[in-house]
């Protein structure tokens, strides 16, 4: 049985698969329950106890006012009312959305790098891969350190370079006009590591026969990338885009490290999760914090749902 090289034109699959493929199955209804429990059970159980349970509990808390150390009083929708009318929440949401939009740029960059890294018999490829991997394991403190070194208004490398050509650069991280963009660029840089690894793994799985057949048809490198490589790794691209979006919408560490708690540009840079952290653990208002987080969760869910709906258009499964 030869794999059909022209796969990319086949109808992209969502679940469940069309009936045609089910003809040869012995059980026409579904997999017997014991098998499902075997495969799904352990993970489901753990998630239920440690995650889903707590999420439900927190949902309950979002309708209450927490005493600082426990003890709840029901307040109904008061927290949510505050979330929807608070200008601080609105600003944090705007900051978060802008940040996320910029960070999504990391996906094509990562794909490009991964493609270059996957060139066959590339010299030093292991060294390159290691170097690209380093940001993933560098401590956030060190990341903040480096970028503050570069972006420091008075003594930073960037401004010294600009001064050499006569431009006086702003204090990138402390100027309300530039702080968010600066953080977002760092965010793009910091978001490259994981996708590169995952894309490299995915690219390993693209059958060489596909490339050969396309080359035989006269397709150049760029053309082959778009019609062979990209569709073949589209499930991974989808995964990366969903997770990068979710991760960017939940950004916290970068702000914490680079902006700090007493900077005048916090309103221009604080993200929703930073606001959550402040509300929950510094202001000790866990009821309101729960409401904030659930508001964000709804937005994330909608965006993810949208991405899942859109995947029919461009993601190709086997």
């Amino acid at each position, binding site marked *: 049985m030869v794999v059909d090289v022209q796969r990319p034109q086949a109808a992209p699959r969502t679940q469940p698969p069309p009936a045609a493929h089910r003809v040869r199955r012995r059980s026409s209804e579904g997999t017997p329950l014991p098998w499902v429990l075997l495969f799904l059970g352990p993970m489901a*159980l753990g998630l*239920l*106890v440690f995650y889903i*349970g*707590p999420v*439900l*509990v927190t949902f309950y808390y979002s309708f209450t006012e927490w*005493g*600082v*150390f*426990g003890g709840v009083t029901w307040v109904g929708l008061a927290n949510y009312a505050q979330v929807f009318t608070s200008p601080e929440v609105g600003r944090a949401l705007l900051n978060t959305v802008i940040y996320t939009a910029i960070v999504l740029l990391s996906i094509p960059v990562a794909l490009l790098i991964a493609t270059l890294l996957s060139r066959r018999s590339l010299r030093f490829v292991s060294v390159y891969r290691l170097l690209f991997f380093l940001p993933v394991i560098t401590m956030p403190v060190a990341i903040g350190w480096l970028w*503050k070194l570069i972006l*420091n*208004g*008075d*003594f*930073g490398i960037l401004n010294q370079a600009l001064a050499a050509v006569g431009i006086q650069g*702003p*204090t990138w*991280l*402390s*100027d309300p006009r530039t702080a968010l963009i600066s953080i977002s660029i760092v965010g793009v840089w910091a978001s490259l590591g994981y996708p590169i690894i995952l894309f490299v793994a995915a690219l390993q799985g693209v059958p060489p026969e596909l490339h050969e057949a396309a080359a035989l048809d006269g397709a150049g490198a760029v053309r082959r990338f778009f019609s062979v490589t990209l569709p073949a790794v589209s499930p991974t691209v989808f995964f990366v885009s969903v997770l990068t979006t979710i991760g960017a919408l939940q950004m916290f560490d970068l702000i914490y490290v680079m902006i*700090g*708690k*007493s*900077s*005048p*540009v*916090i*309103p221009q840079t604080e993200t929703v999760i930073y606001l959550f952290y*402040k509300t929950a*653990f*510094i*202001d*000790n208002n866990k009821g309101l914090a729960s409401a904030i987080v659930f508001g964000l969760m709804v937005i994330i869910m909608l965006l993810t749902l949208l991405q899942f709906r859109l995947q029919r258009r461009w993601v190709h499964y086997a």
Partner: protein
Amino acid sequence: MRGLAAMVTVAGLGIGLAACSSTSSASGDDGPVTITYGFWAEEFRPAFQQAADEFHKENPNVTVKLKLTPFADYFTKLNTEISSKTAPDAFWLQNIHIGLYAKNGALADLTTLRKDSKVDLSGIPDSVMKPYTIGGKLYAMPWQALPFGLYYNKTLFKAAGVAEPTNDWTWDDVATAAAKLTNKSAGIYGIAAPVWNYGTFYQSMYSYGADIITDKGKGTDIDSPAAQRGLKVWTDLVQKGYSPSVAQTTDTPADSWFSSGKTAMITSGPWTATSYSAALGKGNLGLVAMPKGSVDRSGMATTTTAIAAAGKHIADAYRFAEFLSGDTGQKILSKSGVAGGPVNKNANQAWIDAIPGVGIENILPEIATAKLLPSSNATSVWEDQEVTVFTPAYNGTASVADVTKQMAKVIEDSLAKEK
């Protein structure tokens, strides 16, 4: 799955099925007892371990076990533990937290224990002990006082030909000196003026007679003329160019400006003495009392030991906290020279000896006369907004009168919610 679901629900609802029995014995226990002591700064460990060992000699049946949580996560962890009744028996709290924790029932009432105790704490000024009695009940024992002062760079003063600061300086003297010390072409500023409440405008506001939080925590006078004058001290310094701008002191911390010899003066607490001294070189660092306004009153922070209300060895934990404030404990802590000053004046000399050659003795008298930094039952809620609200005044885009009025409203709204 039913049993598991029940367990999840119960555990999730925080009913605390934990094995912790809630019987807290108020009297001392017989038999060997171990109490846990929570703290947040690694550099204090040797001093506190020594204190714990000394305490053990005097109380052989009580062993103190130190538990460190780094400052950044200390309160997150502490609050989680208090909610689950697994907090350490005794733990550090800053003075600004006492109200919050006491009001929410997290702290044990120490009044009776203190009254019945024979330990001599006469070395502690009343003004230092008073703030920890709330509603007639004692909730914490102070062990460290952090008076603030004016540090200066002797080399820069000599180079500019300006007379060195004295303990009698006023804020006007500071401004005059800063003007003469600023040398733009050399990149030198007279003083570092970050938007930092503790070290800068709280100090000046207090010194002009403002209390910031008034009426037993129900009101504020941060928009009063006195407070405005206090804030203006600092906004003027920045606007006249005698200090780096707000953006500059955010990008590069004020400490770095001073340590690198780029500003001639800085106001800060005693914890920076050693590192400033090392940075500036031997004999180059000076320290005098906080400059005065219309009154001689500066702001001070303290660190205390509080006892967990749900603890099982309250009396023994109290005895250790008391030991730390007593003559022996205080001398041990001060000798280490790690950071703050003693609350007990019988340990003053130990502290002076521990940090020689800087001028620590100049800020010592403040311990007895300073006013604790302002706090309410939910301090961080309004305090965190000061940077955002006040920065425009530093940048010259808003007036001091406007920003203080704005801040007063923030504080009033916040206090109203504290009920």
